[in-house]
């Protein structure tokens, strides 16, 4: 089946996929709008402050004299980009650990998995806060992405390992070993294609997780607050006590948009999971499992 046909089928028969895709497209459209913004993202007092939503400013303006809509386009773009960068970096680590651990087995597996379980169990948030505490003003967007990726790979590495373990005992692996392929080649050429579907669905969840981290840290002011992000917008709104002073649009629209992103990604992840697991597809069609 071609990728396009799978896509069309999913859209038609899987309501979660359709809703998720639509939500994600809305968010993407908003973030693309940032390229057409009439105001630079960092400039303040470019428009009259505290204007409620109107024709001129569809989502109102902030107390810092920024247009909420245009500010939002930059914020969602940076936030989304953050999630994608973290997901890509952490995918590389989890693929490496998962594939090697599953293929090698034995003590390599045991050592890697006990390190892996450590990262699953320990509370990561205090560590990130400690990291910010040490870095302070040096904390940048890119640095936070790297450290989040370094902490957030473990859960998916275990999933990948479980697939790799079952591949190890398959005929073609044995044949590859006997024909003298190196470990690296077997893992990359023979096993990687089998774990890719899982990698895609975990990517969505990982983006969600890392954006959650980013929003939370920036709301507390524990990141580079000068890069516009969704969390950063909420941070500035809180600094100006937007809710108490009645500037609700400053905080509501970023929250609504980021919730759309979360739910969209989450729905895509579960519908992909269903697609990967044929039993649930059969259930959906009304068959017996």
């Amino acid at each position, binding site marked *: 089946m071609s990728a396009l046909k799978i896509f069309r089928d999913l859209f038609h028969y899987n309501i979660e996929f359709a809703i998720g895709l639509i939500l994600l497209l809305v968010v993407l459209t908003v973030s693309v709008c940032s390229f057409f913004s009439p105001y630079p993202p960092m400039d303040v007092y470019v428009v009259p402050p505290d204007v409620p939503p109107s024709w001129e400013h569809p989502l109102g303006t902030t107390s810092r004299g920024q247009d909420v809509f245009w500010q939002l386009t930059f914020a969602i773009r940076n936030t989304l980009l953050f999630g994608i960068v973290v997901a890509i970096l952490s995918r590389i680590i989890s693929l490496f650990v998962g594939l090697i651990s599953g293929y090698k087995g034995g003590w390599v597996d045991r050592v890697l998995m*006990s*390190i892996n*379980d*450590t*990262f*699953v*169990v*320990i*509370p*990561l*948030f*205090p*560590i990130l*806060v*400690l*990291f*910010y*505490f*040490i*870095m*302070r*003003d*040096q904390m940048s967007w890119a640095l936070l992405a790297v450290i989040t990726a370094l902490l957030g790979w473990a*859960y998916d590495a275990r999933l990948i390992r479980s697939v790799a373990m079952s591949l190890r005992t398959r005929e073609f692996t044995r044949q590859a070993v006997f024909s003298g392929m190196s470990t690296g080649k077997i893992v990359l050429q023979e096993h990687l294609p089998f774990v890719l579907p899982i990698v895609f669905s975990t990517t969505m969840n990982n983006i*969600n997780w890392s*954006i*959650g*981290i980013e*929003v*939370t840290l920036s*709301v*507390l002011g*524990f990141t580079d607050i000068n890069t516009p992000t969704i969390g950063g917008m*909420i941070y500035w709104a809180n600094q100006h006590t937007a*809710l108490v002073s009645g500037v609700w649009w400053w*905080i509501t629209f970023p*929250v609504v948009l*980021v*919730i759309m992103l*979360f*739910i969209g*990604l*989450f729905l895509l992840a*579960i519908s992909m999971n269903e697609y990967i697991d044929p039993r*649930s597809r059969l*259930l959906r069609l009304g068959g*017996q*499992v």
Partner: protein
Amino acid sequence: MRAYVTYLSKRLVQFAVVVFVGINITYLVTHMTPIDPVEQSISAATSFGSTSPEAIEMMRQSLRQLYGLEGSPWEQYVSFWKRILVGDFGPSLSAFPTPVSQLILRALPWTVGLLLVSTLLTWFLGNLLGGLAGYYRNSRILRAFGVISMGLKPIPYYVVALMLLIIFGFLWPILPISGGATMASDRSNTLAFALDVAVHSILPVLSLMAVGIGGWFMGMRSLVSNVVTEDYVIYAELAGVKGSRILRSYVMRNALGPQVTGLALQLGAIFNGAIITEYVFGYPGVGSLLISAVHAGDYSLVLGITTISIVAVSATVLLIDLLYPLIDPRVEAH
């Protein structure tokens, strides 16, 4: 019994690994970053007005001692571990001279209480409703519940807490939105005080539950809908065993194992959520303490809370692992 001992020793080793790696991460973060925290603090302290070079030198000396930056890297590493093993993080800078451990001990009961109540409630309700939804698949109420809880699941704790704060703080102010108890409350009247604490904990508990319940619900639903198609369940149905009994002792019991393991794996994330929730609702626990410590620039308190939360969370995971054979006796047979 021997199988249980093997199982137990494996879990203990894993506990040791978690603590060892976790503490090493905090060491790496505090000692291996290219930024010198001492110079950072000095530049922050001296950015207003001029300070004499002698005073700065004295400040530098005492800060280097505080951050454990004296001596060779190996000596620094050993003294780092020493401080953690004894649980002595020195005096807090922001609440000088109260020791850090005392501040944490004061905040800990709030966090433990909040986490215990919310986690147990979330886990129990999520599994119960998920089990029912997997068994009675045509129930409309349970389906609606599934959709709502699924919609809340991917939203981070902060956003959910903020939404609850807006709803109950501004739109419909019936619940206290801040603090662990009324400020000048009389603690001698135990019953009234307990009630006061309970009322104050409603919103934090509710926001932790709102985020957490969907995961257990969905997990249990899919586990149960797999188990109900097993032959022994069909046999029990044909033999006329009551539906409620099949669900409780035949289906749920068998699906419970993975959910207990899942709880152990989720604890770290739940703890992260509690930190944020405490901050949003001004709950006087460890999370609020951590965040105010960062704002106050209190290094020893931040380090103390980070290491203690690593040890506490992994100890709780160990406890769940040790109790696991009660739910799944097969562990002992292996």
